[in-house]
C-alpha cells in the first residue's frame, strides 16, 4: 500500500458526480411536485398532516441529523488525528436517548408545529412565543450559515463549481422543496438522502474492509503501524476536563433543543410513533458514526494524511478521496453527489423549522392572536420559507472565506441553553411561569452568544487576540444550569396562579394525548382518510 502517489480527480468537473446529482435533484423535485399537490393546509405544510410512519420519521430524523459536517468532518478528523473523531461521534449520538426519554412523547402530545407550542401551552402566548422565536431563529441562522458556507466550499472542492454558484444552487433547490412541498417533500428528501448516505458509507466501508480481510481491527492496526500507536488513543482534542464536560453537555442537551429535529415529532400520528421513530433514528445514526470511524482510518491508511491535508487542510475531503482510491472516479462521483444531497436536505429541514417560528409563532400567534384564517397562515408560511431561503443564500455569500466551523457548536450551545431548559421545565414543573420561561430562554440565548464571543474560539482563533476573557470554548456547562436556575428563580419570585392551575391539564394531555379533537385544532388537523391509508396508525387507534 503506497499512498504517496495518489493523484485525484477531485475538483474536476466529474461526469458521474454531475449525473448522480442531477438524478437526485430530478427525483426529489418530482417528489416535491407530488407533495405540492397534497400540501393544502398548514398542518400538511408544517407537519405532513401527521401522516408519517415511525420508520419513515426515523430515517428522516437521521437524514436531518447526519449533516455533511458529520460525514466529511468526522471522517476527516479521524483520518488526520485518529481516535479523537470518535469523541465527537459519541457526543453527537448521546443526545438522542435524552430526546427519547424526556422530549419526544410530551412534545408530540402537547404541541402542533413548534416547540413553543409546548412551552406556551399554559403560559401567556405573546412573551413566550417571542422569546422562543428568538431561540429558534438564532439556532437556525447559525446552523444555516455553517451549512451554506460548508456547502459552498465543499461543492467548490468536489465539483470545481464557483463558491457563489454552489451556494445559489443549494439555496434555490432547497427553496423549491420547502416552498412548494413543505414538510411532505422535506421528509421524503430526508429519507432519500439518509438511504443514499447510509448506502454510500456502507459500500465505501465494505470496499475498504475487503482489503483488510473484513476486520476493522486489522485496519486500525495498520493505521497504528503507519502513524504510531497514538492514533488509537485520545489526542489533543480533549485536554481540559471541564472543557470536555462542557462540550459534552452541550452536545447531549443541544440535540433536544434543535428546532428542526423537534419539529419532526409533529409529523407522526401519535406518541407511540414518536418514541419508536427516535429508536430507529438512534440506531441509524449510531451505525453511521461507527462506519464513519472506519472510513476515517481507511482514508489515513489508503489515501494518506499528507494527500488529504494537501487538498483541504481541515481533512474534509478524506471520505471522497477514499472513494476514488477504492472505487475509482465513478464512485468518487457518487459519494460527491451524496455529500451535495446531504447538505441540500439539512438546509431544507432548517429552513422549514425557521419558517414555522416566523409564521406560526410570530405571525399567527403573536401578531394575529390565533385569528388568522387557514389560507393566510399557509401564505405567510410560504413567504417565510422564501424569505429564509433567500436569507440563507445571502448569508452564505456574505460569510464566504470565514471560519464558521464554530457556528455549529454555537447552535448546539444555544439550543441546549435557550430551548431545552424552558421546554423541560414547562412539561415537568408545575410552578413554571411566563416570566420564568422568558427569563430562562433569553438568559440561555444571550449568555451562550456572549460567552462564545468572549471565548478563545472567537477572541484568539478568529480575532487574533492573545487571550480570552472566558476560558471555555463551549459555554454549555455554565449556560445550561444558568438557564435552569434563572427560569426556576424567576418563577418562584413571581408566581403565576393560572399557569399552575392549568398544569393538571398539561399533565393529562402530555400522557394521554388529545382526548377528543379540540375545536381549534380540529379545524386544521386533517383526518387520516385524506392521506394514503395508514393501517398501523388506524389499527392502534381502533384498539385504543
Amino acid at each position: 500500500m503506497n499512498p504517496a502517489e495518489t493523484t485525484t480527480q477531485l475538483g474536476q468537473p466529474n461526469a458521474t458526480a454531475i449525473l448522480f446529482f442531477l438524478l437526485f435533484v430530478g427525483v426529489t423535485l418530482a417528489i416535491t411536485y407530488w407533495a405540492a399537490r397534497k400540501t393544502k393546509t398548514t398542518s400538511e405544510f408544517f407537519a405532513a398532516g401527521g401522516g408519517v410512519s415511525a420508520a419513515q420519521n426515523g430515517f428522516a430524523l437521521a437524514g436531518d441529523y447526519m449533516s455533511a459536517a458529520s460525514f466529511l468532518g468526522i471522517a476527516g478528523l479521524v483520518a488526520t488525528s485518529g481516535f479523537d473523531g470518535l469523541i465527537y461521534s459519541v457526543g453527537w449520538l448521546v443526545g438522542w436517548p435524552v430526546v427519547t426519554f424526556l422530549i419526544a412523547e410530551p412534545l408530540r402530545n402537547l404541541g402542533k408545529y413548534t416547540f413553543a407550542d409546548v412551552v406556551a401551552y399554559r403560559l401567556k402566548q405573546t412573551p413566550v412565543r417571542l422569546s422562543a422565536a428568538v431561540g429558534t431563529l438564532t439556532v437556525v441562522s447559525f446552523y444555516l450559515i455553517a451549512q451554506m458556507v460548508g456547502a459552498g466550499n465543499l461543492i467548490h472542492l468536489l465539483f470545481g463549481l464557483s463558491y457563489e454558484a454552489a451556494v445559489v444552487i443549494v439555496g434555490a433547490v432547497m427553496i423549491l422543496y420547502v416552498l412548494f412541498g413543505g414538510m411532505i417533500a422535506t421528509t421524503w428528501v430526508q429519507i432519500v438522502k439518509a438511504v443514499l448516505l447510509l448506502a454510500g458509507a456502507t459500500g465505501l466501508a465494505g470496499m475498504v474492509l475487503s482489503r483488510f480481510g473484513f476486520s476493522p481491527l486489522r485496519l486500525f492496526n495498520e493505521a497504528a503501524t503507519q502513524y504510531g500507536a497514538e492514533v488509537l488513543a485520545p489526542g489533543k482534542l480533549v485536554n481540559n476536563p471541564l472543557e470536555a464536560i462542557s462540550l459534552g453537555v452541550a452536545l447531549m442537551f443541544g440535540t433536544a433543543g434543535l428546532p428542526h429535529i423537534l419539529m419532526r415529532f409533529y409529523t407522526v400520528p401519535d406518541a407511540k410513533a414518536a418514541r419508536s421513530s427516535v429508536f430507529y433514528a438512534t440506531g441509524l445514526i449510531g451505525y453511521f458514526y461507527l462506519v464513519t470511524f472506519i472510513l476515517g482510518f481507511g482514508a489515513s491508511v489508503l489515501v494518506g494524511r499528507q494527500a488529504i491535508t494537501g487538498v483541504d487542510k481541515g481533512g474534509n475531503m478524506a471520505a471522497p478521496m477514499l472513494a476514488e482510491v477504492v472505487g475509482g472516479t465513478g464512485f468518487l462521483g457518487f459519494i460527491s453527489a451524496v455529500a451535495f444531497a446531504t447538505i441540500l436536505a439539512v438546509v431544507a429541514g432548517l429552513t422549514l423549522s425557521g419558517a414555522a417560528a416566523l409564521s406560526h409563532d410570530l405571525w399567527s400567534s403573536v401578531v394575529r392572536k390565533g385569528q388568522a384564517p387557514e389560507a393566510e397562515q399557509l401564505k405567510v408560511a410560504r413567504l417565510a420559507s422564501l424569505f429564509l431561503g433567500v436569507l440563507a443564500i445571502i448569508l452564505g455569500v456574505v460569510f464566504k472565506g470565514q471560519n464558521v466551523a464554530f457556528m455549529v457548536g454555537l447552535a448546539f450551545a444555544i439550543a441546549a441553553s435557550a430551548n431545552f431548559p424552558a421546554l423541560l421545565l414547562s412539561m415537568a414543573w408545575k410552578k413554571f411561569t411566563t416570566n420564568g420561561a422568558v427569563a430562562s430562554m433569553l438568559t440561555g440565548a444571550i449568555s451562550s452568544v456572549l460567552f462564545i464571543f468572549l471565548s478563545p474560539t472567537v477572541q484568539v482563533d478568529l480575532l487574533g487576540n492573545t487571550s480570552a476573557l472566558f476560558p471555555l470554548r463551549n459555554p454549555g456547562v455554565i449556560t445550561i444550569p444558568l438557564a435552569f436556575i434563572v427560569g426556576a428563580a424567576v418563577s418562584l419570585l413571581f408566581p403565576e396562579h393560572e399557569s399552575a392551575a392549568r398544569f393538571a391539564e398539561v399533565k393529562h394531555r402530555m400522557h394521554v394525548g388529545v382526548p377528543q379533537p379540540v375545536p381549534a385544532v380540529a379545524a386544521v388537523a386533517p383526518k387520516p382518510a385524506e392521506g394514503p391509508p395508514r393501517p398501523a396508525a388506524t389499527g392502534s387507534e381502533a384498539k385504543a
Partner: protein
Amino acid sequence: MSMNPNEEALEALAAARWRVAGVLTVTTLVAYLGFILLVAFDKPLMGQQLVPGLSIGILLGALVIIAAWALTGIYMLWANGKYDRALHQLRGGK
C-alpha cells in the same frame, strides 16, 4: 378536592414515566461523562491495546454508542408495552 380514581391512576402512571425516563437519562449521562472523563484524565489507559488494533478507548467509545441505542430500545419496549397498556386501560375506563 379529592381526585377520582382515574386521575389518581394517571398521576401514578405519569410519575412512573418520569421515573423511568429520569433513571435512563442519568444512566446515559453517567456512561457518556465517564467516557469523556477517562479521555480527559487517563489517556494512557484509553490508548492501551487489548488486541492489536483495538484500544480500550475505541472499545469504550463504540460501547457507549451501542449502549445509547440499547437504552432507547429499553425505554421503547417499556413504553410500548407496560406503559401503553396501562394508558389504554385508563382511556377505556373513561
